[in-house]
């Protein structure tokens, strides 16, 4: 965990500094970068005049203190930017996970129970199409179809133009509006989550369906499932109580791995749905060469990824008591 975290800092540092395009030119503009005194002041201000390893140690020391520096783009502390944008992504990703589980789990379970039946074939098609569909295209097309043409869903953004954002407590509009008992805003926030949430869910739903199906098949052929059937239990009870919990272990693993896909998908989904989350922030930082922001975002995303996978490891123990961590 510590090694992984240090690795994450190292890679985010290398990436942000492997930039051949000069941050001075891209941030000061052509005219200002001609004047040596401005360039010198800029270098000093951002610590660019120090040797690389020293810059790295400063970076890690600041990280330990929770300081990511100031974004060159927004002129705000990156920590502030993150506090502003991260909740939006968490909200969207959570919606996506919920949608993906709601659709993917039953599909995988039924596919396994009725193996080689029509649902099984459907599940196979859905999961293959799910992993093959380019998410930026799905987002674009669904916005055109469901919003602009059919008017079934609300437009991009987190809230409608006439709705005011709730006061910042957690940054999650759904939770914050619930805290204020403002159900109008809550409804609006939820309705804005549907389309981007479903689009983002598509990237992991196929994976969930497929893994649930295959682990379910494996569990259903085990001796204890046969025993449960031999006891005369109803099939539904066998599936729900005896098989499902054991079959969930690989699904949970995949959910951890899929989180990476979710964060990548968030860049696309957020950019297209004008969703002010960390994915869009990352994309803008990358486009404008805002290196404190790039470093911070790659670091935070890397850490989220590492932590999620740690949580997944711990969940195993809960799902399968045979697994113990010493």
């Amino acid at each position, binding site marked *: 965990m510590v*090694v992984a975290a240090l690795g994450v800092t190292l890679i985010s540092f290398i990436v942000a500094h492997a930039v051949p395009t000069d941050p001075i030119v891209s941030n000061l503009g052509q005219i200002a970068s001609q004047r040596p005194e401005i360039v010198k002041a800029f270098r000093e201000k951002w610590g660019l005049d120090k040797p690389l390893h020293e810059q790295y140690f400063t970076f890690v020391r600041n990280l330990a203190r929770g300081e990511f520096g100031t974004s060159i783009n927004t002129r705000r502390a990156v920590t502030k930017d993150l506090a502003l944008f991260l909740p939006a992504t968490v909200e969207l990703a959570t919606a996506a996970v919920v949608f993906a589980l709601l659709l993917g789990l039953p599909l995988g379970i039924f596919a396994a129970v009725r193996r080689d039946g029509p649902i099984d074939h459907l599940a196979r098609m859905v999961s293959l199409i799910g992993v093959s*569909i*380019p998410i930026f295209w799905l987002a674009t097309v669904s916005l055109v179809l469901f919003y602009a043409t059919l008017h079934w869903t609300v437009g991009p953004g987190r809230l409608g133009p006439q709705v005011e954002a709730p006061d910042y407590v957690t940054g999650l509009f759904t939770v914050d509006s619930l805290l204020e008992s403002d159900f109008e805003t809550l409804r609006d926030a939820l309705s804005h989550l549907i389309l981007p949430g479903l689009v983002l869910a598509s990237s992991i739903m196929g994976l969930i369906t497929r893994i649930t199906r295959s682990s379910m098949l494996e569990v259903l052929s085990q001796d204890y499932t046969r025993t449960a059937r031999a006891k005369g239990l109803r099939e539904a009870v066998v599936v729900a109580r005896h098989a499902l919990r054991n079959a969930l272990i690989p699904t949970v693993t995949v959910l951890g791995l899929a989180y990476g896909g979710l964060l990548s998908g968030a860049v696309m989904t957020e950019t297209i749905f004008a969703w002010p989350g960390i994915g869009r922030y990352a994309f803008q930082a990358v486009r404008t060469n805002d290196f404190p922001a790039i470093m911070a975002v790659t670091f935070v995303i890397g850490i989220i990824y590492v932590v999620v996978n740690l949580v997944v490891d711990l969940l195993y123990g809960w799902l399968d008591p045979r697994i113990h961590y010493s």
Partner: protein
Amino acid sequence: MSQSEPTRETAPESEWRRVVSRLARNPVAMGGAVVVLAWVLTALTAPWIVPYDPIEQNIPNRLAAPSSQHWLGVDGLGRDVLSRVLYGGRISLPVAAVVVVLASIFGTLYGALAGFLGKWVDEIAMRIVDMVLSFPALILAMAIAAALGPSIRNSMLAMLMVWWPPYARLARGQVLALKECDFVPAALSLGTSNRRILLRHILPNSVAPSLVLMAMDFGNAIIITAALSFLGLGAVPPTPEWGMMVAEGRELIQQWWISTFPGVAILMVAIGCNFIGDGLRDAMDPRLRLR
């Protein structure tokens, strides 16, 4: 196979043949193969079969809807969408192929060497793999591509840098298992060098899972290539690249055909590859072998 491989004289050949025949009997995999092959042929013959020049602009006719003259409509600069989509394969297919092939070669050699040498070499090599894998591939590729500047070559480089670690992990696992097989001490006792054991005995036996991964990865590589271009980090205008075409049509919500059809092309190739990969995995699965 050379005579220095006493344990498996003809087995690899017949095993491959069995895999191929099982694959040929799988209608879904064959369907995927036909689709991918059709796109490869289209890409190869595009200059002769497209109805219009893919980059020639015809402003008076801009944004024209699909018609008998322009089957898939016209884009914002008056260019024929069908011609551009057909040409798009000439960019995406070779880019994805180069990325997947180079990454799998490098990753496999890297992982095999790590697993074969073991000890601290393995430890350090695998920590590096973990470091790269601790980022979502697209995010890291996006950061690298942005650092290098937008061009097809740079987006390929960025993808290569994030693409090899899964192959390294896979190959290492295979090599660790194969190292314990009897044919290794047998070869050693015949005086075979370490290098020869790795290259001639262990590696050929460890490529099967990598092949499945490559087949499925190819579709993924097509998607990521397009995604980088969509974000403005890959192809530059006026190149007819699928991802960039989707981006160009994004603002033109009424003209749905501009972004829809390039996406359909990406989807078709990606699904085709996944069908092949899926079939290949079934064909190679030892548990399904007796059926």
